[in-house]
């Protein structure tokens, strides 16, 4: 048996995000996570609570939080669950057994996505360089999450605080998204 390091090498593995622009807007890689797509009909949100500790959000475009876990509403029958990396196996198994009784789909996408945090006083301004949504607090309050567009990539955007967002995209789009945001914050360097 060969000795293989099982450390995750994410799409941002060899990237440094530190920049003089950090005062205005800080970009950082979110720590590698366990991620699941949960799909199903009306019974699923409550049923999943057994494994998750809280029900999946049924409010449109809202995140449900519990401890270090979050479930992002992405569609009326679709949630993206993000949890600490070490929970990949245990949470996956727990969800599978909790949901066993109701029609559902549970798919591990831990490695499909990469996560970024974008924070600071200019966070929404920088995101708006590519994101066409109204990111004012009134229109996009803390706790709101949605799939949307960032320039030429699809992203999931979740507002975690007044001036902080978490952004998720597919792995191979990560460098593009990061480069785009980097370019957008040039003026604050």
């Amino acid at each position, binding site marked *: *048996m*060969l000795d*293989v*390091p*099982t*450390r*995750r*090498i*994410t799409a941002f593995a060899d990237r440094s995000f530190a920049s003089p622009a950090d005062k205005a807007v800080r970009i950082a890689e979110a720590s*590698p996570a366990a991620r699941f*797509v949960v*799909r*199903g*009909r009306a019974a699923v949100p409550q049923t999943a609570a057994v494994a998750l500790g809280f029900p999946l959000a049924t409010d449109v475009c809202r995140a449900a939080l519990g401890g270090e876990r979050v479930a992002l509403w992405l569609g009326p*029958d*679709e949630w993206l669950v993000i949890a600490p990396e070490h929970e990949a196996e245990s949470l996956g198994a727990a969800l599978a057994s909790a949901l066993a009784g109701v*029609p*559902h*789909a*549970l*798919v*591990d*996408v*831990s*490695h*499909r*996505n990469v996560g970024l945090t974008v924070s600071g006083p200019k966070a929404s*301004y920088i995101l*708006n*360089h*590519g*994101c*066409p*949504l*109204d990111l*004012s607090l009134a*229109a996009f309050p803390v706790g709101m999450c949605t799939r949307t567009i960032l*320039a*030429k*990539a699809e992203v999931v955007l979740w507002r975690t605080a007044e001036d902080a967002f978490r952004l998720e995209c*597919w*792995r*191979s*789009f990560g*460098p*593009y998204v990061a*480069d*785009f945001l980097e*370019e*957008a914050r*040039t*003026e*604050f*360097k």
Partner: protein
Amino acid sequence: MSAPFRLPAGGRIDRSKPLSFSFDGKSYPGFAGDTLASALIASGVHLMGRSFKYHRPRGFLTAGPDEPNALVGVGASDDRYTPNLRAPVVELHDGLVAESQNRWPSLSFDVGAINDVLLGRFIPAGFYYKTFMWPKSFWKSVYEPKIRAAAGLGRPPKDPDSARYTQVYHHTDILVIGTGPAGLAAALAAAKSGLRVLVCDEQPEFGGSLLHDLSSSIDGKTPAQFVADAVADLARQPNVTLLTRTTAFGYTPHNMIGLIERVTDHIAHADPKLPRERMWHVRAGEVVLATGAIERPLVFPENDRPGVMLADAARAYANRWAAKPGSRAVVATADDGAYRAALDLKAAGVEIALIADMRANPTGALVAQARAAGIRVETGSVVTGTRGRLRVKTAHVARLDANGNAGAPEPFACDLVLMSGGWTPTVHLFSQSRGKLRWDEALGAYVPGTSAERERSAGGCRGVYDLQAVLADGTAAGEDAVRAAKGMPGPSRGFMVTGSPATSGGYLGAVPHDRNPATVKAFVDFQNDVTAKDLKLATREGMRSIEHVKRYTTTGMATDQGKTSNMNALGIVSDSLKTPIPQIGLTTFRMPYTPVTFGAFAGASRGDLFDPVRRTPAHDWAVAEGATFEPVGQWKRAWWFPKAGEDMHAAVDREVKAIRTSVGLFDASTLGKIEVVGPDAAKFMELMYTNAWAKLGVGRCRYGVMLREDGFVMDDGVIGRIADDRFHVTTTTGGAPRVLAHMEDYLQTEFPHLDVWLTSITEQWAVIAVQGPKAREVIAPLVDGVDLSTAAFPHMSVRECKVCGVPARLFRVSFTGELGFEINVPADYGRAVWEAVHASGKPFGITPYGTEAMHVARAEKGYIIVGQETDGTATPDDVGLGWAIGKTKPDFVGKRALARPSMANADRKQLVGLLTKDPKTTLEEGAQIVADAHVEMPARMIGHVTSSYQSPTLGRSIAMAMVKGGRARIGSSLFVPMPDGVIEATVVEPIFYDKEGARLDA
């Protein structure tokens, strides 16, 4: 350096900041706050350019973005050079380099002026449609190159642009465009509501016409003070965003307005971190248009000489920039406004020779003021011509008789002619929004009528000109916008205006004169050299629609889009056709309001940001190995891995041989992957693919074919059943998004009752293909918990297991025809596992191979590539996949269409193999096929080569082709006519290697 026409005091220039710049190589002084135009005028320079067609000398007509004449190229180096900039809106900075355009050898002596003097009469509107047809060959060799060389204004930059551009989306409750009195009043009213308000103006400072108004007083303040206070007030409010140097260029549907902000062009040494321009995509709840009005020239003969200028422009140069536009002026007007200009210029030290007013009996307060100031006023008088070579020297003024005919003219010496034909409301944005204009007979202008979007106009842009009324109009518009946005307007504020007498007047069309109408030129569209005569000719030739007149004469099609000319053109056409203006209509206003830089539209989308570059987890490894890459969709895929001294051919040859004799390693991560999960997964698969799925055992795989509803092949791929309710579907690399969307479409809209859900897992898994007789030996040490023997794990199987200790989906599949495995591991482990496999394969000489070798290997096996063998017109049967159709299935997407008569036609193109007579000859992909060795043109083509390679395994060329009735031709000869000879080939089964597939089961 001194500027002889710089007024000793006044203006909004900053005299503490002197600057120097150059125009046509000569250096001039200026001050911060100057424009290129104001600084040149202060230096007495009026000759600015040559006109498009006749190369007539031209100066400044306006003081704003409506300028048609004074266009310059700006930029010291070619990576920063911009042609066709309007001198009146080029802000000066130290070291600015500008040059004139469309002249040779020099501005003051331009050979092209022969067009004016000698050729002018032979090149009326549309002349080229009537000439240059004989001899025919001369069009391409002589005429057209000449026409082209003569056309165009500036020269395009030669070097790539070095500037950056950014774009940003912005949402606001209220957008106010324009910050003259109307816009400021609207903004003040809107701001109080607490709603989000965005205010923009294209000029470097807010204030619009107030910036050159020295005589009015608003609430007891000078206009300048009023503006300063208003701006300070707005700037204090956190809900208000103020943007100067920002033009609203486009009003697009659903209140999306494009703004372009010029960030650095006015700065000598701009911070490189700043973009040159920033494009704002503003989604506004409500819009207030306060874009003002544009003054019109009078169309009299020789109205284009340098020194002939719009009256209010001259006033602005003097009042706002302390630049005296001349020493002695003749004023030609049909509007009271010009009297104000005359008064202000007189105060600035310009001698006013006389005011020639077309109107018989002008009565406004300003007329009286002018007379009182001792200015000679001649009513019922017009200018009928001017003299002077590079600058006006004399203006000829004549009286109009009772019938409106001009009498004998009297010359007046002057170096400045001010003209005003009245004002045209700036309805561009309103009109772009698809609002309907209304003809206002009293005003003699089109004004906004019915709205299409959530907007309202205020002030000059809807024909309200009286300052007191403008301010009230702006306030009302601001409040209206607040109410429409469901906000609360605060207490309404009134304004007290004095010193701003109301004005009236205006004229549309050509001014009467006594000159020879056949030879004299009275300009309507200055830049495109369109004269009153041209417009009349067009109507005579049957151009009745204003749209035809526009296109035939090119009036209004120049870079100013007719801002100063369209209404006069309309007046002339109305007159020629004896049709009232409202029945003629207007040409369409289109984006942009003023020209917008291409780079700003592109924004950050350049280089790698032009389109996302998608890379696999093992990408960097391949880079380090020296791989060549090919773009496939957005992906970069390793194409081949050349060793030192190898060309593509040698590399691919080696790679394929490695696959056949030992083992190759291939990055298949880009393949699309979809996880189809749910109790009804198999039912859904039955509907989406032609094949049967219900009976596919867990742990087994099947090659699936997907059709469009019209029966043609859309995609294919190997599909593994992971569990009863779980399929791992693979798709082509390029087809992945399309396939997922197609599945979603059917699932949601045709089969919504099915309990099944789709998740893209393309990027969850890195896919490492290990192919070749030694494949098992390479991976065996790495795989945990799977018996890899053929008996336990036959071809077309899948297992969930661990590879290198990480969770994996291991497929036993092959796209090469050899024993093969595809190891799917979570993507972040992809690189490590890839390296482990590579290390494990070292003893076998494991060879990384790219897409080219993959193609060759699969072609040897006769495997098709969707998009290469198929082109959207192939059925499964056409490409030999008839076996994949579940004939007994009641339904699948495309089933009914396959039953159409045309789909069973014997003459359809079918997939075959081709072997050239000469094994060394490789056919060209895309080459066409004929049945007869003797080729006559046009040839009857029966098919084409879809794939063709030198097969390293067979040591000869092989090809696949789509040929009409191909399967029936197996064994016969076909011919491929190439430019250098016809190639003969034998039709064979499209499978060249290991027909029995024994190697797959090794």
